[in-house]
């Protein structure tokens, strides 16, 4: 055991910048990256973790068999290559040789098998079992070959072999995974390893010198917990943290000054998420497709993006993110057109017959409530704009913001809503069976709008049963056309992620999957390193 004493010298941010202007950059080892976070990770075993903070730290400690490349194609990670049988039922992974856990033991197919068995074990409190239950038979062919056989071809299967199932067998075999302290003191094989966890304050990670893709340049990574977002922004300004996620107002206004321009670099890319207004399709108002289309015509999506997100997002046209392969740009779009909206409503029988400014039909005024969760101002502001726009065409809207659990348990689950504003985070795989398939409408399932379209059902089935990208693309393109026409949701916007990183960090290559994917290749040129380590 080598005991290293650290001594950190801090330079002021100003000198950092003036140095860097006339330097040519060369990657160098050293320095510390401090990221600010609101939530504290709870456990660093990916299969047991439910919160994003845990996953983001565990992601630096554990790798998967496969991962997404920057263009969203699947590439090998711990697996060097893989074969998929022609019928799509069997996936055989060929693992990299010589990869070691940080305690020196070699990583083998037995570890994958052990991880698989743990995740499907009834006693493991995991939320990620579903994909692995589809496996009919898993087997270890030899030390470096792992095979999973499926009942039916299942496209999301390949990418399910990410870091959820990679745990060291030699340390956890025969132990109750919920009872060990492995989750707070993990041994991994990723670019970083945990050295110290001070509850409520920070997690300190040190680079894995033997990382199989090469030693990371930045020696230390600190995940600092600051529960209050305003405090966090002040810490960024004071140099207490190097990296955080900005809110739209921070991105467009508060960081637009000389100090931030000189000392920080901002990034912007679409998130894998979208915000939508969902209709209860069982509600008499919204059964009629023309009414939903009319509402779409009455809403100006780009106005919402400009006002609510300060322009940091893009209007959504379907449940996929623009510029990714499943995204179909040629679907029906609803340009802002209140006249057309009124006309469609008239066709559907809604007219203002009593002259009170509100449309009515058979004596019933067109009034409904948009519900959303409390604490999300973006959604609430969106609702306010929609309320105003719909008011203009004679639809009266109330807004109600509810505490999350109440909202989900009492309104969504019991289907006691007319329209809601919600968001979906979407996985990198385009399979959205659980959201749109007509069999998924029971309580707690995710087709809460009760959408039912046999063609979409069939296409969803088709899309997840083939590995051929061209065929999947065809299915998902058609689904988007249908959804854009039938509008079970009004797809509102895809917000942008807006992280900020201190200017001394180089080697950051923004991509559709964000910036952190190549963290191990970031570096700080020797001359401008802030936290020096001396031994």
């Amino acid at each position, binding site marked *: 055991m080598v005991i290293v004493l650290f001594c950190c010298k801090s330079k002021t941010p100003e000198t950092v910048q003036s140095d860097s202007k006339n330097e040519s950059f060369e990657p160098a080892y050293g320095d510390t990256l*401090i990221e600010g976070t609101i939530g504290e990770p709870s456990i660093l075993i990916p299969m047991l973790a439910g919160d994003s903070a845990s996953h983001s730290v565990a992601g630096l400690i554990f790798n998967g068999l496969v991962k997404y490349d920057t263009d969203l194609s699947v590439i090998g990670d711990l697996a060097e290559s893989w074969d998929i049988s022609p019928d799509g039922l069997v996936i055989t992974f060929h693992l990299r040789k010589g990869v070691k856990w940080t305690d020196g033991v070699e990583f083998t197919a037995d570890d994958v098998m052990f991880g698989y068995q743990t995740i499907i074990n009834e006693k493991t409190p995991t939320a990620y079992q579903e994909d692995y239950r589809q496996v009919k038979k898993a087997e270890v062919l030899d030390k470096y070959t792992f095979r999973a056989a499926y009942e039916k071809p299942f496209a999301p299967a390949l990418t399910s072999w990410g870091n959820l199932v990679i745990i060291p067998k030699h340390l956890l075999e025969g132990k109750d995974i919920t009872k060990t302290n492995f989750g707070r003191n993990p041994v991994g094989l990723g670019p970083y390893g945990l050295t110290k966890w001070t509850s409520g304050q920070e997690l300190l990670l040190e680079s894995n010198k033997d990382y199989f893709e090469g030693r990371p340049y930045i020696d230390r990574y600190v995940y600092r917990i600051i529960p209050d977002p305003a405090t966090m922004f002040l810490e960024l300004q*004071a140099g207490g943290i190097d990296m955080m996620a900005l809110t739209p107002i921070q991105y467009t206004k508060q960081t637009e000054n000389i100090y931030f321009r000189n000392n920080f670099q901002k990034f912007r890319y679409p998130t894998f998420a979208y915000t939508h207004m969902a209709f209860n399709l069982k509600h008499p108002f919204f059964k009629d497709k023309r009414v939903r289309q009319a509402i779409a015509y009455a809403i100006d999506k780009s106005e919402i993006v400009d006002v609510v997100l300060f322009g940091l997002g893009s209007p959504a046209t379907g449940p996929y993110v623009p510029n990714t392969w499943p995204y179909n740009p040629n679907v029906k779009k609803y340009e802002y057109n209140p006249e057309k909206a009124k006309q469609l409503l008239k066709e559907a029988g809604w007219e203002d017959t009593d002259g009170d400014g509100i449309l009515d039909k058979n004596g019933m005024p067109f009034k409904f409530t948009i519900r959303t969760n409390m604490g999300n101002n973006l959604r609430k502001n969106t609702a306010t704009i929609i309320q105003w726009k719909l008011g203009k065409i004679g639809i009266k809207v109330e807004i109600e913001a509810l*505490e999350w659990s109440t909202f989900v348990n009492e309104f969504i689950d019991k289907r006691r809503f007319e329209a809601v504003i919600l968001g979906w985070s979407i996985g990198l795989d385009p399979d959205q069976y659980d959201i749109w398939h007509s069999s998924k409408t029971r309580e707690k399932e995710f087709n809460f709008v009760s959408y039912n379209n046999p063609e979409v059902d069939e296409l969803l089935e088709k899309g997840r049963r083939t590995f051929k990208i061209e065929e999947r693309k065809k299915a998902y393109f058609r689904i988007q056309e249908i959804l854009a026409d039938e509008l079970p949701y009004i797809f509102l916007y895809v917000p942008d992620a807006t992280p900020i990183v201190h200017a001394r960090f180089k080697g950051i290559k923004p991509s559709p999957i964000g910036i952190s994917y190549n963290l191990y290749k970031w570096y700080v040129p020797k001359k401008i390193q802030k936290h020096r380590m001396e031994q």
Partner: protein
Amino acid sequence: MIPTLFGITLISFFIIHLAPGKPTDILADFNPKITPEARERLEKMYNLDKPIIVQYVLWLKKIVKFDFGESFSSDRRPVMQKIWDKNQPLLDRRLFITFMLNFISMMIILIIAIPIGVTSATHQNSLYDKISTTTVFIGFAIPSFWLALLLMMLFSIHLGWFPISGLKSMNYDSLSLLGKILDRISHLILPVFIMSFTGLAGDSRYMRSSMLEVIRQDYVTVARAKGLSEKIVIYKHALRNALLPIITLLGLSIPGLIGGSVILETIFGIPGMGQLLFMSVMTRDYPMVMGILTISAILTLMGNLLADIGYMVADPRIRAK
């Protein structure tokens, strides 16, 4: 005291369970990969499928053995370990941090509030009385989170005197003993100042009114008539009697301080019990919330007991009975 404690836990338990949502929601809500069966399985693991009264009895059974159970958050550590982690130095244990923060603030409040109260009573309706009254009420009325952000901007960003948040600096481990002490103190100055400033009003106003009452008593007039100096009259004869209600007030102020530290610990990123309570309530971590509430209840009851004892020490008349 024991029946009171029992009552407190019973009410807290039911109220926290009345709040909609379950600890499993964070794992399961809007996660398309979870099936209703998987959700039921998770709920079963936490005994959440049982009637609430059964859950309470299960909890109570453990509590009598001082076992607060395990946290429902995915780390599943024992509640007691999260509040009082024996692997950490005393200074870094959550309960100690919160206790220390509150104790220091309370001392400062006393040191400042009592003189303010006494002097504004003796100078009733003077300009000084009006200014001090206005000042303590500003402290009382100002939202602490807002004041916290303003002070952070002034002292930490513009002047750079104090660190913004946390309990110690990144390089804490490499500091000398003196450096470590100074580091901790510099992190505590802003939160302690805010806690004290916002808490001055209660004690100083009580002190003022109780003093006003006392100096109108006959024995004060007698003391003055004896020719004692005003100083001795006020600080020896009147003050001792006027202090009595403050002792009771101290015992009662403990829950308020703990409540206040939930907000301040969250804003300043101080890893105390209040911050833990905030996070646990947000994730419906029932055992954790119950553990912290029970400990706070015990502290409050102990505070009341100490106040009673203090009363006896201070006032011979009560002792005699």
